[in-house]
């Protein structure tokens, strides 16, 4: 058995248990559920190029030949570890021997990437879905970010544009004569067939060729709405630059009419007709909750407050269930076609993430929440999506068919669930193992003189007046200067001769933080604060309240003055929780 961290490093997978319970009954007794975290597209520099088709087990299993398979070199047979079927090697494997094994059978290649001979038939597709119920500043920032993103796309990538507010507009970028868009009413639930017909995507709507004229090649279908960025960048930039706020008036007692649902259903409908089962992303930019039509989160009457978690829990959120159902149906259609839906929210208030979460969740899309599209958090997160590898290829994968194969005694029982907010939960689903763990339990590094920086307990006892703490909660990266450090810094010791070590101490966590910032998507919020300062609450809220008003009975002693900071909270401390877990786990084993 390999060290599980090595396995994770190699294959991007970590299980909650590295020894399997051998029966179902045994499994039911485990308190920590059996589950796997897997990063399918983890970058692996060491993988060999495998330029042939994979060998698969017979249907319906179709598991791929791998180092864990038993092979019979002489009989040219292999036994599938999942279904225990015997499979014969294909004829071109006739020359294999114990010294001449194909790469997929070598133990080090438990992860392997086949470069399929089948060419990628369709370039990646990006469909921008833009909310125009924004104030001018936000709209401008959003327009600018999208214009920049166009330059980051490979020239052959296909792009499309949908804008929405009171109504939804699908821009026909392939129309050379003028700026043209198809308009859909915000208040109407369009059936997929209707959308197809209205956009002229169904074949019977082909324009009638005139006698003596060749059939127009581009007058129908995908090529009208989704075009190579190299071809339409100028036109698209022009449209984006002239994009103005939704023109319909908003009374003072009303919210802007925002038909996010119609826009998304048109986007999903467009892609499922034109590019089914090919790599495509719908990038939704929403400046507020849907207030009109299907998928409505809150009505446009300001007197109706947006539903709270409390309303949802009590089942009294007016539009909640219908919206959930609507977006789930869309999500299913998108994911069936391998289409990704990303959600970018630029809004102080809620955008209805709770209702829409199924879209990015089941399509493996990104969620980026920011206060406004004018923030750098949005801009950098958004543009990070378009980062490329060394060969200039986008690092995002498209249309991945992610089948989890399990051995015979196990079956996939569902997605992991955590009682955290939807956005974070989603990212847990997508992020790599370490990052997920950071989200669930943030890391805290402590820096002080003469000792290398070291991880410390995520506990209020770690707060000391002579240390610098670096907190990484995934969403926030926070540098915290202890009281004494802050005083010295304010007095400018770091600039004085003889205090170089203090300067170094100040710089070290900053450098570490920068490193974290570069890797992370979405870009975390970066905060530098001092002990006692208002921003320090970000740190305090993450710390285990070992010194709460409840802790005396738990630990018998109160923290000494200066040793740690008291935090007033009702949450049980992590230590208590871990103790509880341990007891249950041990109990289960001994029962």
């Amino acid at each position, binding site marked *: 058995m390999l060290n599980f961290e090595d396995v994770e490093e190699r294959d991007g997978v970590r299980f909650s248990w590295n020894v399997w319970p051998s029966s179902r009954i045994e499994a039911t007794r485990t308190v920590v559920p059996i589950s796997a975290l897997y990063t399918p597209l983890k970058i692996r520099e060491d993988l060999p190029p495998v330029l042939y088709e994979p060998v698969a087990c017979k249907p319906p299993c179709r598991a791929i030949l791998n180092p864990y398979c038993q092979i019979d070199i002489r009989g040219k047979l292999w036994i599938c570890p999942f279904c225990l079927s015997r499979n014969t090697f294909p004829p071109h494997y006739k020359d294999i021997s114990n010294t001449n094994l194909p790469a997929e059978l070598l133990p080090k290649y438990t992860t392997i990437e086949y470069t399929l001979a089948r060419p990628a038939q369709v370039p990646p597709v990006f469909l921008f879905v833009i909310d125009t119920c924004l104030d001018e500043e936000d709209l401008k920032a959003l327009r600018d970010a999208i214009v920049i993103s166009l330059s980051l796309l490979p020239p052959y990538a296909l792009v499309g544009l949908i804008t929405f507010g009171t109504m939804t507009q699908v821009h026909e970028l392939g129309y050379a004569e*003028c700026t*043209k*868009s*198809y*308009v859909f*009413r915000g208040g*109407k639930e369009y059936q997929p067939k209707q959308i197809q017909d209205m956009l*002229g995507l169904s074949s019977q709507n082909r*324009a009638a060729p005139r006698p003596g004229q060749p059939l127009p090649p581009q007058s129908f279908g995908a090529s009208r709405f989704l075009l190579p960025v190299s071809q339409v960048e100028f036109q698209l930039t022009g449209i984006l630059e002239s994009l103005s706020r939704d023109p319909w008036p908003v009374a003072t007692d009303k919210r802007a009419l925002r038909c996010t649902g119609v826009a998304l259903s048109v986007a999903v409908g467009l892609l499922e007709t034109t590019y089914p089962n090919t790599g495509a992303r719908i990038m939704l930019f929403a400046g507020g909750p849907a207030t009109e039509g299907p998928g409505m989160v809150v009505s446009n009457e300001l007197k109706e407050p947006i539903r709270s978690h409390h309303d949802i829990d009590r089942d009294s959120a007016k539009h909640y269930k219908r919206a959930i159902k609507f977006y789930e149906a869309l999500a299913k259609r998108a994911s069936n076609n391998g289409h990704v839906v990303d959600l970018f929210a630029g809004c102080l208030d809620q955008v209805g993430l709770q209702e829409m979460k199924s879209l990015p969740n089941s399509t493996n899309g990104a969620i980026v929440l920011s206060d406004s599209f004018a923030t750098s958090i949005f801009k950098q997160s958004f543009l990070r999506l378009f980062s490329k590898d060394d060969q200039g290829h986008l690092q995002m994968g498209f249309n991945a068919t992610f089948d989890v194969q399990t051995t015979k005694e196990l079956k996939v029982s569902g997605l992991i669930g955590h009682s955290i907010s939807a956005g974070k939960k989603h990212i847990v689903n997508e992020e790599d193992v370490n990052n997920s763990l950071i989200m669930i339990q943030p890391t805290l590094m402590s820096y002080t003189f003469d000792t290398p920086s070291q991880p410390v307990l995520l506990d209020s006892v770690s707060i000391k007046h002579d240390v610098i703490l670096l907190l990484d909660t995934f969403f926030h990266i926070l540098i915290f200067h202890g009281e004494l450090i802050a005083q010295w810094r304010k007095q400018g010791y770091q600039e004085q001769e003889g205090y170089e070590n203090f300067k170094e101490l100040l710089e070290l966590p900053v450098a570490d933080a920068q490193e974290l910032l570069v890797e992370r998507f979405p870009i975390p919020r970066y905060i530098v604060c001092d002990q006692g300062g208002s921003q320090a609450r970000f740190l305090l809220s993450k710390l285990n309240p070992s010194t709460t008003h409840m802790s005396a009975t738990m630990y018998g002693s109160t923290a000494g003055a200066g040793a740690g900071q008291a935090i007033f909270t009702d949450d049980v401390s992590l230590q208590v929780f871990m103790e509880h877990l341990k007891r249950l786990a041990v109990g289960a084993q001994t029962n």
Partner: protein
Amino acid sequence: MQNHIPQPPHTAGLGYQGLRPRIEPSQVPSPIETIETDRQAWEEKSYMTLPGAHVPLSTSEFAAVDQGNSSPRFIRVTTWNVPTSSRLASDCAIPLSVIVQPFADLDPREEEIPVVDFGQNGPERCGRCRGYVNPWCSWVAGGMRWRCNLCGHETEVSTAYFSNVDANMLRLDHAQRPELNRGTVDFVVSEEYWAQHPPPNINPSYFSAELPLTGPKQPLPMNYIFAFDVSNDAIERGFLKTSCDLLKTVLYGGTSLDGQQLDSSLPPASQVTILTYDRTLHFYDLNSDLTPMLVVADLDEVFVPMRDRLFVDPVGRRHAIEALLDALPQRFAQYPSRDSSLGSALRGILASLAGRGGHVILFQSTLPNTGLGALPNGSVEPELYDTDKEKTLHKPRDVSWLDVGEELAGEGIGVSMFLAPNKYMDIGSVGAVANQTGGELFFHPKFDFNRDAVALESQLQRVVRRYQGYNVKMKFRCSSGLRITKHYGNFVQSDPTDLDFGILDADKAIVADFEHSSSLNPREYTHIQCATLYTTVWGERRVRVINLALQVAEMAGNVFQYADMDAVFCRFAREAMVNMSKQKLSAIREELTEKCSAIMLGYRTKCAAASRTSQLIIPEAFKAFPAFLLGLLKSKPLKGRHVSSDVRNYTAHRILSLPPRDLIHSMYPRLLALHDLDEQVALPQIYTVDTPDPGVEGEVGVVHYDYGQIQMPSLMRNSHFFMEVSGIYLVDNEEILIFWVGSGVSPQLLQDLFGTDDFMSLDHRLHYLPRLQTTLSAQVHNILTKRMSSRGGRKPKIFVARQNHDAAEIEFSDMLVEDQNNGAMSYIDYLALIHKQITNVLNNGSALGGSASIRGSPW
């Protein structure tokens, strides 16, 4: 008449069945004589409008002096001496009807219609019948109250309107009050008279992102939507390109196709937008320099994809509009659609103009085969001719066309349509929208630029330039003893007394029937008042009030003597058009003839009982009537031969709104002999001024041309019988002009008129008349110019028909309605038939329609 030519063999008609009494052709009453005599009578004198005088025929050019009674230009009655009782009326068999043309163009010699503004108080109205104050009211109680001439009710005079009266009970301010001196007045009216936003529809025909408006509707300058069918048929024959080009001239002026300089014809403050449609609707944001095209593909639940920005000032956005109109034909030519969603486009139009009202000018070439009210192709027309289902060809096949028309009218929107189909387009359905909204249809089948564009341009100019109002309500009131029963025209009737029009213009007339509710006092006048509430094109709310006082007659002789043949003809024609959707055409034709016979019979029994039965007696006032009626029977909607329902329905639409003058010229076309025009005729009077004279205009010693005094040549009867092979004739039915050239024409005559001296080389595709430096050319051009101006600038299509050579000769022959053609009798035979019907009644005592021999006849 020597050298007269026989009818060409390709015309077909019916002969008289059985033995026809011999009628001497020279004895046959000539409709032309009637028209010409009256025309000449009014050349020199003005018509004074007080009751009692003979009224000019509608075909005469006259100048009226409004003496407190409205001019026959605005209102005519079937008899100017109203029978005192319903008994007398039915004895005379003259229908009791009034025909009004509220916005008729004035003669240049006539005074403008006074505009009266009473401010917030509005005009004085009767407390009982709500009639408007007028010259026929009387003042009682020292001027404290006024007595209504219609219902007799006495209404308190408002403080603001009070004036003392003199010993004759005449108000002291009488002379300063146009509303007390003139029969036709425009009142400016206040908010109280604004149109109301119609209540929201339970089944909305369009969707709006905004709440429906309620309450009174602020009058605005006229908004225009120019809507283009951009399907393949519109593109193919150049109709789309031509209409776009012509619209630019409408908006911005320029040189017309025949070389006239035109200024912009839109009212100054009007706003416009452009809509196109094929299988989807296309709106344009003319405010943006990119002029984005917004496609609405939801044809079932139509909505407007823009707000505020939809309507623009055409002057301020000239660049965008011109660029779009230039681009449209090419834009859709690339991948043309075969489909047209006119029904949905009309909902889009409704949604766009709801709350504002306005005028839609629409260019359509295709059967609307998709969207709301989509109409199936493949008409089974010929199978239905002369069957009980024939009437279904003459009404909408889908009721939604009536519904949208009604809704448009309710919003104060008029729809005028320029139709240029290449094949069947179901005008019976599509045209219903123009019928309902007060708009007009223009028909250019198989559009041909050379043949049709000049006419099309003049029509489009007229549509925009003529006096018109929108959001119109009309109501007739009449004196106690009379009541209004029925209306004929193109409008929506919201209740028994009120008519709604999206728009109403100078060229439209409405017919209302009235009947007795009690006997009238023959010593008093009886009155009719027609009030038309409308919004002017510059956005002012007004009421045009037309007042008519009429003499009451106890004697049938007076009823006949003062009968108005033109009005009766108009009324009969309207009723016949309305009946097309209810009856077989053959039945309608029979009824018309019987109604004509009934009038003759009524006259004979009440006024000429002593005459011999062998004599056909036609009352003086109806002398031309049988000839006109024969023209109506031979008209496109009613004639007994195969005519496509599109042509029938288009022409029926026209007849339903034409005023009497235009109707008569359409049904009995004007025929002129051009080869023997008098040397003086149709030329300006030339004079020189020898000594300065304040009474004579012009510089001394210079030759002057007086175009105001051009004398027009006399018309001739519509029959080959009066034509010669050496002649050139011009026939004019208001829509087309045909120059008929006899095979024996002299080369000199051809040279003088067409610039070629060879009969065979005369181009039969010539669709204009060349301007030549010859007297004949000048004369004919002057005649055409004069007629064009009396038509409000509209120009007919021009054809040349060489005898026995050109296809246009068929149409020419059909227009000679006194001949045996159009599946019907000749004029002489027709008179014989009428005579026989009357004689049958007189000799056998049977009823007019009862005789099987007559019913069984081809009538």
